[in-house]
């Protein structure tokens, strides 16, 4: 039976066959396009400027985490949606960090990770708050990051308040166990938010462990010469030097103190920017016996060791920026799975309710209070024979602490 007769007529069978083929062809792109839309994560780090190395390390860790999530099939709750990294460079400048937030907002990011420097983080999180976009701080020591009532800000690692408390407790314990040879401290810090805030907190808490803060010495970034700081420390006859500064000044100060024969019971840093494998391996004589309370991976975690190997295979160093940024992305991935949506409000709620455990860190399950994770802790480290050992907390320790350091 024909629908129509004549030369141009089409039989019902031919019509059905043809329409099926057309429908099939039209459906093809739809099936191909059924792949869930990628979830964009904005990574804002100072990959240029005076802390470029730290920023590049942070970016490395975050990108590795994104690759790992994607290779494992993406976000399952979103139909296997891939994570897509939007790379931003704050250039170590506050205003540039804020403009990166704006640009990435235009590009439709679901969440941000950043910013290494506290001042940049403070401004960038404020900018992200306007759009209700969650912002996970990977590195940023200032507690002002999470104490302004912004509900979109989350920090997995402990801030300098917690780190200072833990460091002070450890220092007091080490000094007491050695018969209290140290009585006084000089604090040398960079003059920004991180260094000044940490040094002031430390100075306020030192009397609680029987140590007197003799002087706080601030320096700029960059500083060309620490000879006079060494002179001052020698004149003050301090027993301990505590340092809070970024990589270049940290290393230069440590070298100068050794060169200027400043004999102290300990050089102890809190969140020391330069205390890493590179420093300890390249300058073992300078680093030997230096103590640092910092973010550190769990040396007993096989996943952490595997990640360390993967980073080293790329020619990089497994510094704290790498694994803190890695964890920040993994935290967002976990929240996306639980939210089942990339909607900003739902993702923020999922982050706030997170009970994720960062396996590679010496942390318990996540519990955010006003955006600050209560389950995180740092570790006290010591440079010993060209390597970095964990000396506290005891549960993760890989060596016994040497305190006071042997006299040169």
């Amino acid at each position: 039976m024909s629908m129509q007769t004549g030369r141009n007529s089409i039989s019902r069978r031919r019509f059905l066959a043809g329409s099926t083929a057309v429908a099939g062809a039209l459906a093809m792109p739809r099936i191909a396009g059924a792949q869930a839309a990628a979830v964009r994560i904005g990574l804002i780090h100072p990959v240029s400027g005076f802390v470029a190395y730290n920023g590049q390390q942070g970016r490395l860790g975050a990108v590795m985490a994104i690759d790992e999530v994607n290779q494992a099939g993406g976000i399952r709750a979103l139909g296997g949606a891939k994570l897509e990294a939007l790379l931003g460079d704050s250039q170590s400048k506050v205003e540039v960090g804020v403009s990166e937030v704006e640009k990435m907002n235009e590009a439709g990011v679901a969440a941000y990770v950043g910013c290494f420097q506290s001042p940049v983080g403070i401004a960038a999180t404020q900018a992200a708050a306007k759009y209700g976009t969650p912002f996970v701080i990977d590195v940023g020591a200032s507690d002002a990051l999470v104490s302004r009532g912004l509900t979109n800000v989350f920090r997995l690692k402990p801030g300098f308040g917690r780190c200072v408390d833990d460091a002070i407790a450890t220092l007091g314990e080490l000094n007491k166990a050695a018969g209290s040879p140290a009585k006084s401290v000089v604090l040398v810090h960079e003059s920004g938010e991180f260094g000044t805030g940490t040094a002031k907190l430390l100075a306020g808490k030192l009397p609680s462990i029987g140590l007197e803060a003799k002087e706080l010495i601030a320096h700029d970034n960059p500083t060309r010469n620490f000879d006079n700081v060494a002179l001052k420390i020698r004149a003050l006859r301090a027993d301990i030097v505590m340092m809070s500064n970024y990589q270049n000044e940290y290393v230069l100060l440590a070298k100068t103190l050794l060169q200027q024969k400043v004999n102290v019971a300990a050089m102890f840093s809190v969140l020391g920017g330069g205390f890493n494998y590179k420093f300890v391996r390249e300058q073992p004589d300078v680093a030997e016996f230096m103590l640092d309370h910092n973010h550190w991976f769990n040396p007993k975690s096989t996943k952490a060791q595997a990640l360390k190997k993967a980073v080293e295979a790329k020619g990089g160093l497994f510094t704290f920026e790498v694994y803190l940024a890695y964890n920040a992305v993994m935290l967002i991935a976990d929240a996306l799975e639980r939210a089942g949506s990339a909607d900003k409000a739902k993702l923020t709620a999922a982050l706030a309710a997170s009970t994720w455990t960062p396996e590679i860190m010496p942390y318990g399950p996540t519990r955010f209070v006003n955006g600050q994770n209560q389950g995180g802790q740092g570790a006290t480290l010591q440079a010993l024979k060209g390597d970095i050992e964990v000396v506290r907390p005891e549960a993760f320790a890989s060596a016994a602490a040497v305190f006071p350091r042997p006299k040169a």
Partner: protein
Amino acid sequence: MLSPDILLAGTINGLLTGAIYVLVAVGLTLIYGVLHIINFAHGSLLMLAMYAAFFLWRSTGIDPYLALPLVAAGGFALGYVLYRCVIGRLSRGKDENILLVTLGLAIVIENAALFFFGGDTRTVEVSWAAETVEVGPAFLPLAKLVSFAAALALCAALGLYIARSDTGKAIRAVARERQGARLVGIDVEATFAISYGIGIACLGAAACLLIPSFYVAPTSGHAFVLVAFTIVVLGGMGSFLGALVGGFVVGVTESLGGLLLGESLGQIGIPLIFILILLLRPAGLFGSRA
């Protein structure tokens, strides 16, 4: 109140640090004296020279002091080529264009260093770098003592070269009167390129003397370039003697300022000198002799 011992040690430290500043400023003042422009790429080129000294040490084990002639010669060649191929051509004979070209060069060099070398801090570890010489209350780093002697020698050698050699005479002639120099047969463009090359060669020498006691990263030049500008203004633009005296004055001011006012506030001495000189003696201490 600080003891006289500390102040004495601080003054000596300031002189030693000032010597490093002299080395950086000498090239800058030469370039200004002849080309009449401030070389904004000076800090970036210093950084590049420091990388050269670092990579030579790392790949061949050659001590930075022994690498000095090589890096200085490389600096001369780079400076000459940069002037001939980039600065001279793009400036089209206008001094204000040269300013912009050197600023552009600085941005390109710094970002290229970041791209190729990464943001990581590199240091040269040589056994003698940690050695000190005890002089009264001060422990003087051997590396800085060598830099001090080298700064004096370099200024003397450069002064003699400019005063006695034919090229030096041509440089002085071009610095005084370009048109006149051209009329008596001096190749002005070549003299510009040679002057720029010598300026960068000085940076090469400074880099080799600096790297054992400092570090190199893509932004390392920033730490010295503002100080070098201040020294050139203080000593008188184009004056070697001015750069020498200015470097030591700035070094001691910075050192004593740091001791008396604190490391951060003590830095105020450098911009203060800059402003005072501009107000009271715009030509600088030795500017009239330049």
